[in-house]
């Protein structure tokens, strides 16, 4: 027993997993941590958006009873929660205008931005002022409120489209790498063919035939950006197939699917994760570009891409509209790229940071 522990690395003796070791290295990377913090901030903004920008108060007293309209909106961000917890009248009615109908004497906690993302007002293209911190757009909608709700789209695009891409890429790459032979040739050719088409061309060509909606955009981005994930997974599988522990599982008579997904995949997933992180940045960029072109999120729903479009259409009359979406897209893309870089360094310490 003592002989065994001598041959093992000190990390193993301390009982630290690979994930934990990677996290400890990641934590020492300031740029990666800044990126991660910004992503977490975006997540929080997206989830708690109804508490930050809403035309209804977070908590209020109305005709003697307590209401929590903002809190209910947050709960509705959880999938299927809107089926269980319903908003009570009068706040559930679209015509109910809380800002006018609530009496000022009664208790109410209002969000930081007392406007919804689709709420119009008479003040169009107003520059930043006290009531509208980032100004208003051509329909008199508060830009800050729209920016906050735009976070939701960017987060969703990252998760859903890359979820689809990872699923396709990992399965195809695993099958090609594991089985080899003509299956590998077939899949590798297919990857090569899809890679010949510029991704943005592919996305546009498929989207052209679908109803313009954000769900379609996310699915199509996912369906077209799996190629590099598949290539990395395949490479990792081929590398790991030569390892002794895989041979041991074969000798034990493990089922091929079990070897593939239980034994090889967990060891192959780390480099794939780096590709996925960079993929999220690219997906956010594609979504914003598509929304700018008019294929993505449709008005009046907000997305950073269509806020940028509004800005582009009113460059002369309202130059202040340009900066918020540009900065937001830049920071989102940058932070995913920083996290990707840091993750790559953390997972594979052999690649030194400065070469």
């Amino acid at each position, binding site marked *: 027993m003592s002989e065994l522990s001598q041959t093992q690395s000190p990390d193993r003796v301390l009982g630290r997993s690979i994930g934990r070791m990677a996290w400890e290295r990641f934590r020492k990377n300031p740029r990666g941590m800044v990126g991660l913090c910004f992503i977490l901030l975006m997540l929080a903004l997206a989830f708690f958006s109804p508490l930050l920008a809403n035309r209804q108060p977070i908590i209020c007293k109305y005709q003697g009873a307590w209401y929590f309209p903002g809190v209910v909106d947050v709960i509705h961000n959880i999938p299927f929660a809107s089926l269980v917890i319903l908003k009570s009248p009068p706040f559930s009615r679209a015509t109910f205008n809380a800002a006018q109908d609530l009496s000022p004497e009664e208790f109410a906690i209002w969000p930081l931005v007392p406007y919804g993302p689709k709420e119009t007002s008479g003040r169009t293209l107003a520059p930043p002022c006290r009531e509208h911190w980032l100004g208003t757009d051509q329909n008199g909608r508060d830009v800050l409120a729209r920016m906050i709700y735009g976070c939701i789209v960017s987060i969703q695009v990252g998760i859903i489209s890359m979820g689809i891409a990872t699923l396709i890429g990992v399965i195809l790459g695993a099958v090609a790498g594991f089985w080899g032979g003509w299956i590998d040739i077939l899949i590798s050719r297919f990857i090569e063919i899809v890679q010949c*088409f510029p991704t943005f061309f592919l996305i*546009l060509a498929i989207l052209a*035939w679908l109803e313009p909606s954000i769900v379609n955009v996310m699915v199509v981005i996912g369906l077209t950006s799996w190629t590099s994930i598949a290539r990395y997974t395949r490479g990792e599988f081929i590398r790991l197939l030569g390892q002794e522990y895989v041979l041991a599982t074969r000798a034990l008579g493990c089922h091929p699917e079990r070897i593939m997904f239980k034994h090889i995949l967990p060891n192959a997933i780390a480099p794939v994760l780096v590709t996925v992180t960079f993929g999220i940045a690219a997906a956010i960029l594609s979504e914003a570009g598509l929304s700018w072109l008019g294929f993505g999120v449709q008005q009046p729903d907000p997305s950073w891409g269509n806020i940028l479009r509004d800005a582009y259409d009113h460059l002369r009359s309202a130059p202040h509209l340009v900066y918020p979406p540009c900065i937001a897209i830049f920071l989102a893309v940058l932070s995913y790229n920083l996290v990707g870089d840091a993750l790559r360094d953390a997972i594979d310490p052999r690649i030194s940071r400065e070469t």
Partner: protein
Amino acid sequence: MLTYALRRILIAVPTLFGITLVSFFMITLAPGDPASMQADQIQDTRMSIRVYEQLREYYGLDQPLPVRYWEWLKRLVTLDFGQSMTPDSRKVTAKIAERLPATLSLALLSLVLGFALAIPIGILSGARRNGWFDTLSSTVLYALYAIPSYVMAIPLILWFSIKWDLLPFQGMRSDHFEQLSPLAQAGDLASHFILITFCFTYGALAYQSRFVRQNLLEVFQQDYIVTARAKGVSESTVVLKHAFRNTLIPLVTLFGLSLPQILGGSVILEVMFNWPGIGRLFFESILQRDYPTIMALSFITAVLVLLGTLLADLAYGLVDPRVRYE
């Protein structure tokens, strides 16, 4: 070399066939066709159905898919992409040829400019690794690289074209282009190129100069560099004559691989700058559901990408004989 080249070209043949399959079926299998789009504009339902049937027959959409694919393939061999399915029914080849110069000149200009800047930056930062120039250039270029090109374009348009009114940003030439003297015409054209060329070029700059630097550092590890230094060759000769020449090999591949990024990334920028190029044509054809043009453009770009990688591989094999024996 010949066997290597032949083998590499033979591998590309099934890929080429796959490209024709994807270009054709991705677009024809989708619901909604140009005939129904044009017929929908007619209010009277009975009329619109009759027009729809006629249009389908006119465009050949009533044929079964394999027949249509075969017909398309047959015309493809003679580089005939058929007629566009928009009401003007122009030839697709003419449509593309008209837009090609704008995109090609832009792509070439930004490629040449990119390499002209990236090579000196890469050499300077590689020669004095972690020196002040290395740190400065990598920081600035990383920051630039992180800014997506169309996100950069809009503030640039705002400042340079609208606030300071220095540069135009719509199209390739001004409205009064015809009345200008030849010299003024050249100036007008150049001023239209500045902003869009910058947006096309700066992103790849970080990547390209990093690539030069990385390769230079790898070459520095080689024995012959140590030998050159040991025999007292000056540092500039070592860098420029001994080291840099050998970094040219991987640069050849980078040249071929840069092509797809420039072609694919052009849609948004071309629409933004109202540039009469391929990217905007693709966008317009998509809005009009013009099958033949979309198929032709997808096919052509995919083939160009394939050619780019093929040329990169062949060039690599030509300059570095070790590759052929792998």
